């Protein structure tokens, strides 16, 4: 049984009469202990999908799904209280901006211990011991003295390590990392990624890595889903996704990477930007930006269909042989 089984997830904002779908037809299956990537430009709906999964969206978001299972729990059938009980204990999340994600008015130690106190019956000294152990495991130097530190006294990288320590405090089965390194310096990014993967291997938790940075995910995730305008457009093992992309959008993401270009050659940007939920074109949402678009793409929305070792949402998937260009 997969740890996470999502089928047909849909998140609407706005009036009931004119709903704006931030996410629709979102499918995701994640095995116990697997590492999965989720990529897409900003505005593609990946963060909204993850927040919907956690149950952290505000009351103005309407969530529906054919299936939303975590382990043997049907998340849609659970009470609010029961779902909250899962957060921080079974499923945890690390956010993009680590400095803003820590409460400035509480010490680091208190913020870690708070999660433990919420979910486990543990004495004060035992909680403190666990917090210290967690800080040590996320590679914070002089962890004993850091317990009493305030968030503003730590760097961004250190804050993200603390956030990871908080997320792992109750040994969750799933960790969602939403752009965990985007706000950090390049030198620190690699350290945090290394730490996440190392912890994933040691604890055996599943890791859902959300990023706009395809190479970052290519190095780490076994399988990757690509999101565009609220929908998954391609899903397959990361190695073949990068080597032989079938969806034009995946191909465009890869072509836009600077390292794929020779010196002096002009970088290939994807023209235009992701359409907002209210302004999505008819047919395939990508067709106005797609160099391979044909008349049918503007009329008929493609479905996500099985394709080789994964699936793709395109009427005219690219020929794998031509992909390396």
């Amino acid at each position, binding site marked *: 049984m997969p740890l996470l089984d999502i089928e047909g997830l849909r998140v609407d904002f706005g009036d009931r009469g004119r709903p704006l779908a931030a996410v629709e037809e979102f499918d995701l299956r994640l095995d116990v202990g697997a590492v999965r990537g989720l990529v897409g430009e900003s505005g593609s709906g990946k963060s909204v999908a993850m927040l919907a999964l956690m149950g952290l969206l505000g009351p103005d978001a309407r969530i529906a799904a054919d299936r939303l299972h975590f382990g043997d729990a049907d998340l849609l059938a659970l009470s609010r209280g029961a779902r*909250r009980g899962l*957060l921080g204990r079974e499923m945890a999340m690390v956010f993009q901006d680590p400095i803003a*994600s820590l*409460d400035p008015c509480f010490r680091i130690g208190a913020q870690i211990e708070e*999660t433990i106190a*919420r979910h486990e019956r543990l004495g004060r000294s035992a909680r403190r011991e666990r917090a210290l152990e967690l800080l040590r495991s996320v590679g914070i130097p002089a962890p004993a003295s850091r317990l009493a530190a305030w968030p503003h006294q730590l760097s961004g990288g250190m804050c993200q390590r603390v956030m990871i320590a908080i997320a792992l405090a109750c040994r969750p089965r799933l960790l969602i990392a939403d752009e965990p390194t985007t706000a950090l310096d390049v030198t620190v990014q690699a350290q945090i990624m290394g730490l996440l993967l190392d912890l994933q291997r040691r604890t055996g938790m599943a890791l859902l890595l959300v990023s706009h940075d395809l190479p970052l995910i290519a190095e780490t995730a076994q399988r990757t889903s690509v999101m565009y305008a609220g929908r998954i457009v391609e899903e397959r093992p990361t190695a073949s996704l990068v080597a032989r992309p079938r969806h034009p959008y995946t191909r465009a993401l890869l072509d836009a990477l600077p390292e794929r270009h020779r010196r002096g050659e002009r970088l290939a940007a994807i023209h235009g930007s992701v359409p907002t939920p209210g302004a999505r074109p008819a047919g395939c949402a990508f067709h106005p930006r797609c160099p391979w678009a044909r008349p049918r793409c503007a009329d008929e929305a493609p479905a996500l269909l099985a394709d080789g070792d994964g699936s793709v949402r395109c009427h005219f998937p690219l020929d794998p042989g031509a992909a390396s260009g």
Partner: protein
Amino acid sequence: MPAFILSRLLQLVPVVLGMTLLAFALARLIPGDPVETMMGERGIDPAHHAAMRHALGLDRPLAVQYLDYLGGVASGDLGRSLVTKAPVLGEFLTVFPATVELSVIAVAFAIAVGLPVGVIAAVRRGSAFDWLAMTASLTGYSMPVFWWGLLLILLFSVHLGWTPVAGRIDVLYDVPPVTGFLLVDTLIARDGAAFASALHHLVLPAIVLGTIPLATIARMTRSAMLEVLQADHIRAARAKGLTSFRVVFVHALRNAMIPVVTVIGLATGTLLAGAILTETIFSWPGVGKWLVEAVRRRDYPVLQGGILLVAGAVVCVNLLVDVLYGLLDPRIRHAAR
């Protein structure tokens, strides 16, 4: 923390100096002089007038009078009232506790009601409760104090007979003054009936005086909470699985307290400066009534001393607020070092 408080205290020196000048100038800017008001409507012949001015030292150059006053302040002597001949400090100390008692209860009432109302209005933004609370607070804020006070007196004292109309306590009780706070003194004297009477007298003026601070606190709490509830660390706190109560009242409220404490401090300062209207309506023997009387009599020493002492009290409240900032937010505490 001691260094933080010390640095704030040092900043007070120029403030206090400015206050003495202002208090001195304000007292003398009022037209007329003490001699004229003492003599009443029948007037006084010029020679006698000049002699009395000389006797009171009012014929000296203003600069000399100011330096004389400043010298007195420096040595802790605020002079004597021209009317009662009693030391200004002594008079102040008898009326100040009445004002403090009223203000503290009024602010406590404003916080006890305003804070939860603001929090709930923010959490239930756009709900009927939010709309009702914000409309009521705007009404309370806009209501003239003298009108609001009279309205409550008419309803609760005259019509329903629930509360007394004026004063601090029934005349039949004789409570030995220890602190000057009747609620405390009656408890020290172990006189339950007197305590009840003092409390009974306090309720209505405290509500009248607390209405505007209540409205300000409720609105400020709401807007500060709305901002904090959008913060990343609130989402992160929810992601830990914490209960809504803990997220709202521990994490969000703690972060929203800085602006709220600011308005509480400002409100307290204003009330200490003499809730002139409220004290007049309820015949409350406090600083406000005392100063108004001094203005009427052109009692320069009382005005100079009284304004300075009240300003000093306001400054102390502000200092307390600064210290509270540091306690509430570690970033402010560390930046002050």
